Structures are given as structure tokens and as C-alpha cells.
């Protein structure tokens, strides 16, 4: 293990300790609740990150998948089902919706994929808004309870922290598995994978299902957090913000989603207290990130550190995924602007 890797592990350990200690540091209930919001958003962003980083599939529909699951829980709670049943219905709804997404999009790639997910997401939003006999229309569904053992805000927070860690771990494992390698193969060159005998759409569908299932889980967590769901959770704006989080944090990095989610949620919830034009600020931050920190905050920092170290100790590995257009003809990733 090199010194850098040791540093990495120590950093992660410190982060985990900090996450768990957070409610014990004299923080108010509001701050703990805000932290839950950040982590749930980070889980959702991680699913987008996985799909875009490893699979090269930029999705603008994940907010809607999470919302579908949340609606599942809401509808089920209106029927007076038990909590277990609510979880089943929520995850079921999320997975069915994910499957619909996957089937519609698995034959497309690049920009077409983006547009299909965008359009399907808008359909989900429309359904939430207009299928009012099930969704109660704009008013949304209120009074959805979480399991009793998670009723206390701090207990729920710790549960969310654990969920975040498990999700990060699962995505890391999938990404390092042979399946993950195949997925990156598809990302880099579909035609090469095809000629190697892989059935490409199946790869994409499976990746989408993994990502969508976790997104559904995040939807369930968010409904447990806020106790209600309404069409605005399915808005395209939400999905776009997820993408913003991923890009800000750094596409393909493990901690990128957490960093991105923290920034976006804080701008939305805290900066908005004192700055009226915060949507503009968000847009400007996003544009600047794409122009000047293409690898995101995490990626760019890592790169900077690496470059400084390389200057001292010669060449080293450079395997951070970058936000680049992958030309179908070459397997190498194009480098970012100098």
C-alpha cells in the first residue's frame, strides 16, 4: 500500500467517524435533518454517477424513478398497508418504472439516451401531476410514516448514514467486478464489445436496473424523511440537479456524489436564506465546474495532488474517470483541456 492509499483510507475512516458523530456534536435537529437530506441526495447522485461513470449513460430521469418509489410508499400508506407492505410496494413501483426506462433506453446511447431518460422522466412527472385519482395530483400524499424504530430524527439519520455507506460499497463492488469491467468496455466501444460476442443492450439494462433499484431505495428514504410526496419530487429540475451534483463532485469518483450533494443542498437550503438569486448562482457554479474543473471537485483535487506528487516522484497511475465524450472509435479516454 502506497502512502497515498494509506492517506485515502485514513481520510475515509475520518469521514465515516464524522458522519456518525454528527448528531452528537451539539448539532440542532434542523442540522441533523439537513444532513439526512444531503445523504439521501448523495445516494441518488451515486446511482447517476455509477451509470454515467462506468456505463457512459448520462441519465436525466433518476429523480423520477425515486419519486415513483416514493409514490408507491405513499399510495400504499393511503391504503392502510403495513410498513413492510409499503416497502414492498415502493420498491416494486420503483423497479417496474426502472424496467420501463431500461427497456425504452437500452438500444440508445449518448445523447439519445439522455433524451429518452429526460422524456420518460417527464412522463412520470406528468403522471404524478395528472393521475390524480392515485397520486392526489398537485396536493400530493401526506402523512406517510416511517418504521417506528426510526421515528427519532437522529435514529433515522444514522440509518441514512448506514444506507449511504452500504450503497457506496455495493456500487464500488459492482464497479470492480467483471460486470463492471464489461460495462466500461461497453462505455468505451460498443462495437468492440459486440464483436467480442457480448449482447450490449443486456449489459446496459442490467446496469440500469442496479442503478434504478438503488434510486428507488433513495426515494423510499426521502419519503420516510419528509413524510410526504408530491409531483415536485418528480420534476425534471430534480433530475437535472442530480446531474449537477455528480458533475460538481466529479464523475466516476467515489466521494464525488457526497461532495456535490452537499454543495447543491446547501445552496438550495441555506444560501437561499440570504441570497435571492440562488438559482443563478447554482447555474454559474455548474458552468464554471464544467469549464474549469471538468473532473469535479474531488477529481480535480485528486489530480492536483497527484500532479504535485508526480513532479516529486516521477510518473504514476492516472485512472480517474473524466467527463469526456467517448468517441466510438477509440478505447482511450480523451484528455481534458490543458
Amino acid at each position, binding site marked *: 500500500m502506497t502512502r497515498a492509499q494509506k492517506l485515502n483510507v485514513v481520510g475515509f475512516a475520518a469521514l465515516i467517524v464524522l458522519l456518525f458523530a454528527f448528531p452528537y456534536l451539539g448539532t440542532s435537529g434542523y442540522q441533523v435533518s439537513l444532513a439526512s437530506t444531503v445523504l439521501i441526495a448523495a445516494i441518488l447522485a451515486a446511482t447517476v454517477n455509477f451509470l454515467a461513470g462506468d456505463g457512459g449513460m448520462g441519465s436525466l430521469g433518476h429523480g423520477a424513478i425515486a419519486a415513483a418509489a416514493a409514490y408507491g410508499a405513499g399510495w400504499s400508506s393511503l391504503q392502510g398497508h403495513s410498513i413492510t407492505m409499503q416497502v414492498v410496494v415502493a420498491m416494486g413501483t420503483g423497479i417496474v418504472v426502472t424496467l420501463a426506462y431500461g427497456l425504452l433506453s437500452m438500444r440508445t446511447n449518448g445523447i439519445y439516451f439522455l433524451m429518452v431518460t429526460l422524456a420518460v422522466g417527464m412522463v412520470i412527472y406528468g403522471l404524478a401531476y395528472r393521475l390524480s385519482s392515485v397520486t392526489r395530483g398537485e396536493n400530493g400524499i401526506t402523512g406517510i410514516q416511517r418504521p417506528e424504530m426510526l421515528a427519532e430524527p437522529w435514529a433515522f439519520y444514522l*440509518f441514512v*448514514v448506514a444506507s449511504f455507506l452500504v450503497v457506496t460499497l455495493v456500487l464500488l463492488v459492482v464497479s470492480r467486478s467483471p460486470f463492471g469491467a464489461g460495462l466500461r468496455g461497453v462505455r468505451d466501444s460498443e462495437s468492440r464489445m459486440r464483436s467480442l460476442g457480448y449482447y450490449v443492450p443486456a449489459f446496459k439494462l442490467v446496469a440500469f436496473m442496479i442503478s434504478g433499484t438503488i434510486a428507488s431505495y433513495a426515494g423510499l428514504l426521502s419519503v420516510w424523511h419528509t413524510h410526504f410526496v408530491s409531483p415536485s419530487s418528480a420534476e425534471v429540475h430534480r433530475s437535472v440537479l442530480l446531474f449537477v451534483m455528480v458533475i460538481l463532485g466529479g464523475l466516476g469518483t467515489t466521494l464525488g456524489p457526497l461532495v456535490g450533494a452537499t454543495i447543491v443542498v446547501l445552496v438550495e437550503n441555506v444560501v437561499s436564506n440570504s441570497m435571492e438569486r440562488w438559482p443563478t448562482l447554482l447555474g454559474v457554479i455548474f458552468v464554471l465546474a464544467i469549464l474549469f474543473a471538468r473532473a469535479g471537485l474531488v477529481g480535480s483535487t485528486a489530480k492536483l495532488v497527484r500532479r504535485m506528487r508526480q513532479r516529486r516522484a516521477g510518473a504514476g497511475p492516472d485512472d480517474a474517470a473524466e467527463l469526456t465524450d467517448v468517441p466510438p472509435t477509440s478505447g482511450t479516454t480523451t484528455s481534458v483541456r490543458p
Partner: protein
Amino acid sequence: MKSTTTSAHRRLGALMSLGAAAALVLAACAPASSSDPTTPASDPTTSDAAPSDDANGETPAGEGGTLKVGYISPITGNFAIAGQEMVDGWNLFWEINGSEAGGVTVETIVEDDAGNPELSLTKARKLVESDGVDVVVGPLLANTALATAAYTSSVGVPNLHPVAAADDLTQREANDLTLRTGSMSGSQMNYPGGVWAAEEGHKTAVTLCPDYAFGWESCAGFKQGFEQNGGEVVSQIWYPNGTSDFATYVSQIQAANADIAFVVTAGGAPGPDFLRSFMGLGLTDSQELVMNCCGMDQATLRALGDEVLGFKSISYWAEGRQSPVVEEFNNAYAERYEGKIPSANVAGGYMTASLVAKVLEENGLVTGEDLVAAIGDASFEDSVLGKVSWDEYNNTVGSVYIREVQERDGKLYNVPIREFNDVDQWLGLDPDEAMARETYSQSFQG
């Protein structure tokens, strides 16, 4: 190289599983500070406002103490104009009358929720748990209002609603801490419109309402008023939320061939969009039309100008009503906001402020359920909304006006041509009977 990377990742993995396990252990022991969400953080070491507290201490607050108000409204996003108006109405009152009532200083913290219920909820939490407000006012939209009310009532903080119209806020989900202070419920405000239409001699009606709770409630109110007085609603058309091209619906209204058309929008663009199509098809003179509060509000008047002269609508707010209270309010608003005329949203915010001021003057500083109870006992002989009082479900009982757009000094006003007084939310039923019925929908209209 590759293998060390993988092993590092394996270590990370182990670390995270360990972390996840730790969560379960930790879940058994509660942190002291966050076990009670209703107590605002008061630990002096963590409070970032500590130094400024001393500065505040030098300027004495009203001897009766301070009422801290958290005001949530969408100031950015798609509902920004309505949200800003709701805030302006509230501020206007305190600017005119000073921010002290009955010796109590009223301090307001405004928060933006961008019309997003998740954000409303976070902001409500922040206001209650970090700022320690005594009362939450707003937000504007039905979904944000219902979400916020569920939270505030769970932590024992009163929640006043200047604009939100959802029936259930003061019916099936009514509670001791949630009040509608500056508007009426959807069915309540349109019921007298149906009565009026029937009394005008119209025999048949066609309705066009948005296909969700507000539309169902509004149409149900009109339909019951109309049919209880001998009219018949021959066709009910529902448009999906977010409709922008109304031409096909106008064609359907024309095809229905009814004596009067009743059209509902929740405010914003659908009002002008509908009227553009309606006037475009040349129906202005041939089809009698009455709209609801929000379809013919000042935003529509500003968008369409003289073209809407003579159009009729039903609302609890009439900016053209001859009353010293309304005139004072209109003038004060016009003076501060570029000659604009206040909409129902401004009136709702202003009304809520007048109510809070009145309660403080009569009772001194009251909070929690006492504040709600005091509001329940309050009444106005003439407010900006006319004669108003509150029923035991914390809803307004007040006047509904049939209005006509008229020009006065080069400006357009909705002027009342008929007034219904003491309108409550039960549409002629008793409360239990009304709430035992199913919720309004396309298929159930009462």
C-alpha cells in the same frame, strides 16, 4: 499497480461495512441534543448568533415581548410572483402600522421555498428548530401548505395560511394549530357563485376546471350552489394541470351550448391563456362566462388589459369594493409598488397581519394553542376581505363577491356587483355530514 489499487478498495469496502455495522450499534444510544426536536438549540457555545445577542439587548423590544414569525413563501421559481405578493401584503401591514402591536414586537423571518414542498419542510424545520419562531405563516401552494401543516402541528407550533385553499386544511386534516387566515377553501368560495348564476335565471351550465383537488373542490362548490337553486350542470370538462393551449376546451364549451360557463384556474398563465382562446373564437358576446378568484385576478388583468372589461368572476377578495379599509390598503400598496393594484395574494398576507395585530392588541403576547384560540375568537366588522370571523375548524367565515372588471382612473378593478355574507365552508350541510362524504373528485361533485 493494479493489485494494490484493488486491495486499497477492498480495505475501503471493509471500512464501510464496519461503519454500517457501527450505525446499528449507535442507533441504540440517543444523542442528548437532538432527542427533542421541539426545543430549539440554545447551547451558547454552538449558537453563532451569540455575539449579536448582546447588541440586540441594548435596544429594548416592546415591553410585552417579541412574537417571532417564520414566513415561508415561494420567492423564486414558477410561483415567484404570487409568493412575493403574499410576502408584500404581510410586510405592507407592518410598514403602515409599525411592527409593534399591543406592546408586542413582531419580528419576521422570510424563507423561500421555491414552491417545492421538500424545501418548505426544511425551511419550516429551520424556522422552528434553529430560529425558534412562535408561529409559521404560509406557504402558498396547497401541497406545500399541507406538508408544512403536518409538520408544524406535530411540533406544537401554530401555522397560519394566508392563501392556501385546500378544503382539507380546515376539514378532514383540521387540527388545533392550523388556521386559514386570509382566504377561503376551494368549494366555499365558489358555492355562492353557483347560487348567483341560478338566481340570474341561467338554467344550464358547463364547467371547466383543472383536474386536481383545487379544481374538483371549486367545481363542486359551484355545481352544488347552482343545482340547489334549480340549475343544471350539463357538462363538466377537466383539463390537465399544465395545459397551455386551451383552444380545444373552448371549442368544447361552445359545443356544450349551455347558458353559462364556469371556468376555474389556480392563477398564473392559464387565466390569460384560456381567455385568449375564448376571445379568439369570438365567444365574448355570445357565451355568458364567470371565472373563479384566480382566473380573473390582477395578474390576468395586467396581462390582457382593456380586453377583459366587463368580465365576471367569483372571489372572496374584491379590490374594487367601496370601503375605507380597502381603499387605504389599495393606496398604500400602489404607493410602494409602482401603482400596482393588490391581488388576492397581497390581501391574504395583509389580512393575516391585521389578524395577528388585532389578537396581540387584545391579548398581549400569546403563543401556541392560545394564539390559535385567540384568533378563533376574533372577528372583523370590516377588513380588507369584508366582515370576517373564524369557525371552530379554524376556517374563515366571510363574504364572497360576484365581481365585474371595471375601469377606474385608467386602472382595472374587479368591482363587486353582488355580495354574499357570512359564507361558511359547509355549503348548507352540517360539518359532520359534509366531512362524512367522500372527497371531491371528477366522479364525486356533491
